[in-house]
């Protein structure tokens, strides 16, 4: 018998900077690998998806207009807050089945990954943009811009996979609606608490927990979503989701799951960038 009864956390959604329960009133039990009950997570609905997209769209103008340096600062602040919650993430990863050393290693890697992406904010334009030598008296330059609202179907790697898909989506100025790992969503909710205390404007990242197969089609067919990361969806759902995404010509990214330990390339960032080219005459 413990000395005192612990105060458990209610795991909720993260939409527009607030922590609502699902409007559907639904939740689902999250279990550890042995099947023991750990917590109830909110089971988001179609309406929650739509609310999250509205929040993400509302946040896009402000977030994309921040200076790249400011975005870098805020993302680095996220890493600081992640580090501060290290013990909590380790606990949640252990509940999701990781050994003590695995959980510690994944948490460390997640913090380091976030730092890696934070530093990209003010370098992407230099690496992916260009001044173009056109044949005429014009100054012509190309610069990357965020594509808009990105839906992220996060993989089942509960923390490292999550940050490895969320950070590259938002570092360039996109806003995101994230569907967390279905079997292991708790670290995602804790990440939301980190984001909420890191100067990241509300709505830049919105995190839903629930049934991936139920939520993914609403995101894929939503006409105010500009891009979708299908990394976390099952193989047999990919085709239908791509077909739905074609309706408004979403940019679609799907990389093979797993392999989160390696230092990533720029692919997950450039997939959600547009290139804008501006012309102006030169003369006196």
């Amino acid at each position, binding site marked *: 018998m413990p000395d005192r009864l612990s105060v458990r956390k209610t795991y909720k959604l993260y939409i527009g900077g607030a922590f609502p329960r699902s409007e559907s009133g639904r939740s689902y039990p999250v279990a550890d690998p042995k099947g023991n009950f750990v917590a109830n997570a909110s089971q988001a609905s179609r309406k929650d998806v739509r609310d999250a997209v509205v929040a993400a769209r509302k946040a896009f103008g402000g977030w994309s207009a921040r200076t790249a340096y400011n975005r870098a600062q805020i993302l680095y602040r996220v890493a600081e807050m992640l580090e501060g919650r290290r013990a909590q993430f380790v606990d949640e990863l252990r509940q999701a089945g990781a050994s003590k050393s695995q959980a510690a290693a994944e948490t460390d890697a997640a913090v380091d990954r976030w730092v890696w992406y934070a530093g990209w904010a003010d370098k992407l334009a230099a*690496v*992916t943009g*260009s001044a*173009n*030598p*056109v*044949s*005429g008296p*014009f100054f*012509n330059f*190309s610069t990357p811009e965020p*594509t*808009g609202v990105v839906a992220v179907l996060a993989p089942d790697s509960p923390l490292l996979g999550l940050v490895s898909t969320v950070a590259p989506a938002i570092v360039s100025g996109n806003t995101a609606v994230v569907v967390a790992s279905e079997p292991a969503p708790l670290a995602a909710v804790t990440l939301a608490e980190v984001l909420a205390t890191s100067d990241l404007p509300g709505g830049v990242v919105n995190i839903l927990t629930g049934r991936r197969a139920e939520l993914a089609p609403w995101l894929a067919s939503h006409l105010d979503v*500009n891009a979708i990361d299908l990394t976390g969806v099952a193989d047999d759902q*990919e*085709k*239908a989701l*791509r*077909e739905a*995404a*074609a*309706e*408004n*010509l979403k*940019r679609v990214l799907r990389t093979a799951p797993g392999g989160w330990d390696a230092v990533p390339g720029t692919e997950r960032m450039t997939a959600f960038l*547009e*290139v*804008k*080219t*501006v*012309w*102006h*005459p030169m003369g006196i």
Partner: protein
Amino acid sequence: MVFEYAPAPESAAIVDVRPSYGLFVGGEFTDGHGEPFKSVNPADETVLAEIARADEGDVDRAVAAARTAFERVWGPMPGAERAKYLYRIARIVQERSRELAVLESIDNGKPIRESRDVDVPLVAAHFFYYAGWADKLGHAGFGPDPRPLGVAGQIIPWNFPLLMLAWKIAPALACGNTVVLKPAETTPLTALLFADICRQADLPPGVVNIVTGAGDTGRALAEHPGVDKVAFTGSTDVGRQIARSAAGTAKRLTLELGGKAANIVFEDAALDQAVEGVVNGIFFNQGHVCCAGSRLLVQESVAEELLERLKTRMATLRVGDPLDKNTDVGAINSAAQLARIRELADAGEAEGAERWSPPCELPPQGFWFAPTVFTGVAQSHRIAREEIFGPVLSMLTFRTPEEAVTKANNTPYGLSAGIWTEKGSRILWTAQRLRAGVVWANTFNKFDPASPFGGYKESGFGREGGRHGLEGYLDA
């Protein structure tokens, strides 16, 4: 005293149009197995030639020829050798430039001044530009040794037939891919002349294959399992279909689709320059331009003055014989497109906008539409929302820069936009906020092989031109 223009027709004798054309597969012209169709001169409705129609079996043959060429010849060839073939092609295009320009104007209806001074020089420039990339791909920022994708299926529109061919074929070949290209049904002739250029360049058989036909042929090509990459320029509706059909396959996709560009004129703009830009933006190539500045947004304080100058300028546009060197606006490409333009213009009137065209005598034969401007246009009108793809301009007004940006972005498209102001900081402020892939400031409708082109939102994805244009043809 009034100076009248004397006709100054370019001679059509320079080009030898054959009575019938086959498919170009594996380096040879071969028969098609679909029902042949005719290509018509839109300026006088005469039949130019009978064109083979590729059925599924023909497309299959072309893809197989491209695959063989990719595996045996073009894929393994050193980039420096590929480069030399592309340089050769660029040179032959220059050598045969007048022939190509005349043929383009006959088949498409565009003024010879444009095909001669814009389309064909850009075609040569495109091949020349991408030729130089072929042996430098490791320096392009896509990894040290990026590989080609394989066989590219490429489907192009009728508005810039040869130029769109160049935009597709030049980067594909530079990256080591082989291609099967389907030109538009109404404008196949310059692509077939290009096939002859490939032969003159001794390009290995099967590296470039050209299959002619309509939508069915295009579908067979886009859906062919042997195609590794589909590149499409055309309507957003067809782009959607291609994106759907590619779902569940490993095909890579680039789509360059429709547009409804805003051309924003602020009150401090140099108005005469702006008028030239507005006219160029919508009447260049009869408005058959996906990036045409079809929505004119004018700051309220100068709207009346600008409209007056615009009408004066429109009255000087010469509409008529595409081969006349004085012609500014040529023929509408097809009867079907003319019907579409008429329908939308009629809808503009029916919805309450005011229509104006200068007095303008149109030739009795062929497909023609007078330059037209609508005023009193609301954002809800079809002429403000739908791509007309014709010489029809819709004018709206705004009061503040914020309103201009909001209205400009109020479209599912995002291909291009224009800004007219003398204030540099306002140009950059506006350009940053426009959700469009190409922004022309104090200019419009400029193109260059070194300059990436492509859209945001439902105008498609991927870029053509520049270093960025390589990405769609590389397995990075």
